[in-house]
């Protein structure tokens, strides 16, 4: 149902590095879980709407006012910082 190549592709999409052993285990686990959820195919869902939310609310608005949320220690949370700026790897790589 799900192949090792699928797992590799999913890991890449989810940005999670997996070892070969983990790929194998996930292939097995996911096949089991997907086997279990197969039972949903028994259900007649014709003319049933999707339940997109537990509360029937739409478009909760608020006034577009500036609000101040204290965020003084956000910079302290940076894993890497230089002169108060958040330091990350370059998005573009040099050839």
């Amino acid at each position, binding site marked *: 149902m*799900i192949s090792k190549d*699928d*797992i590799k592709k*999913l*890991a890449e*999409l*989810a*940005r*999670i*590095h*997996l070892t070969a052993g*983990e790929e194998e285990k*996930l292939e097995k*686990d*996911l096949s*089991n*879980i*997907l086997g*279990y*959820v*197969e*039972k*949903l*195919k*028994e*259900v007649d*869902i014709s003319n*049933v*709407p*999707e*339940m*997109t*939310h*537990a*509360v029937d*609310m739409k478009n*909760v608005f*608020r006034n577009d006012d500036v609000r101040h*949320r*204290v*965020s*003084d*220690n*956000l910079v*302290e*949370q*940076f*894993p*890497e910082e230089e002169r108060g700026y*958040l330091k*990350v*790897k*370059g*998005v573009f*790589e040099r050839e």
Partner: protein
Amino acid sequence: MIKETIEKLEKGEISARELVSHYQNQIKKKDPELNAYREVFPDAFEEAEKIDKKIKHGDTPRALEGIPFAIKDNILIKGKMSGASSKILEGYTASYDASVIKKLRDEGAIFLGRTNCDEFAMGSSTENSAYGPTKNPADATRVSGGSSGGSAAAVAADMALAALGSDTGGSIRQPAAFCGVVGLKPTYGAVSRSGLIAMASSLDQIGPITKSVEDAEIIFNVIEGKDELDATSLEAKPPSGGLASKTIGVPKEYFSLAEGGKEGLDESIAKKFNEAITFLKNKGFEIKEVSLPSVQYALAAYYIVMPAEVSANLSRFDGVRYGARAEGKNLFDVYAKTRERGFGEEVRRRIILGTYVLSAGYYDAYYSRAQKVRYMIRKDFENEFRNVDLLLTPTAPHSAFKIGEKTSDPLSMYLEDIYTVPINLAGVPAISVPFGTVPKDGKDPASPAGGLPVGIQLIAPRLEESRLFEVGKILEEANPNFS
């Protein structure tokens, strides 16, 4: 407990400082074995002293004046570390209070510490915590349940007067049942989730774990209500006065929710459940058999909807802005290695599963179908709530299991939540009330070491928490010496 404690504080029979000291001593004595706490806060005494001053001054005590709380490690407290028991958040300090924390604080609550849970609240035994499992106070070879196992164990072992947990598929109610305490999962939207580290946003709710139903009610009344910071939150329902629930439905499907012969209702739990039915009958309730035909598909729908939301919600943990960061040769590598090292096995499994069910080409087969089944489940509840005031079920199919018993097979762990998940999918409120014990290893359940706690679950229509408290208080009378 809360009421009596505040009365004692007011009369000067006890001080908030003494209360904190009592719980800290209990923690020192018991927690090295149980592992309920991730961290005990050093500043609880300072808060207690402020409260003692106010009381001495003659101020009217607030709703939770001086009450010492344990808080699950996925609810933010400003200036405190918060990690959802995950390595990926190691070193993270919250920059704001969750709305529930602010509300508790405003009513005089004291925070003793933060409690262990399954990583990002994903699990049913607290064994998925990156910091070891929380053990069951009734038997330390067994799990406390999960994911709010630390909060439930802390209350059960008298290491806190009350606690907060979060419940996405049973994570308040199942550990409450396993540990012998009360656990409330409010209506979806009744309590703001601002400041809760999100797992599956269409299902998550914060709720109290307490020693009595009355305590759960007091805390719920403090934390409920509309909050601008959570657009899904609802206005609190004004008290209607006239209550008196009369009819209670027992869904027949709950007796037959077996999965491949694996997870039927344990005989000893069925016996306690029947006792609960008889007890309520004798109290004058009419018990009706009802039917929720779609609940047999609830767990399957849940294991599509939940991981889908998990995969989206947890994309924010990438090592860029906060928490732990792994080194890598480029940005992709930093993401992939940070998430490899930071996330535990179960979290990774759910992210990958969620990524799969949301992939192009699979949407109709999985996600869309699951959302339609979810609609049917909600309709089942709505239909039966036209006939009955409340529903009654066991909270879990069996009592607390042994540590390590279910860790090798993810699916058998998932089946743990078979009685609690339908409630989250439907968005209705439910409470687990302790109902005595069942024999452990053939021992006499009445002996101190011979019994394991059992929980009975009451379910109400949306925003009808008051019915849960009303009947829950009657149900807990059946086992008055239990907690």
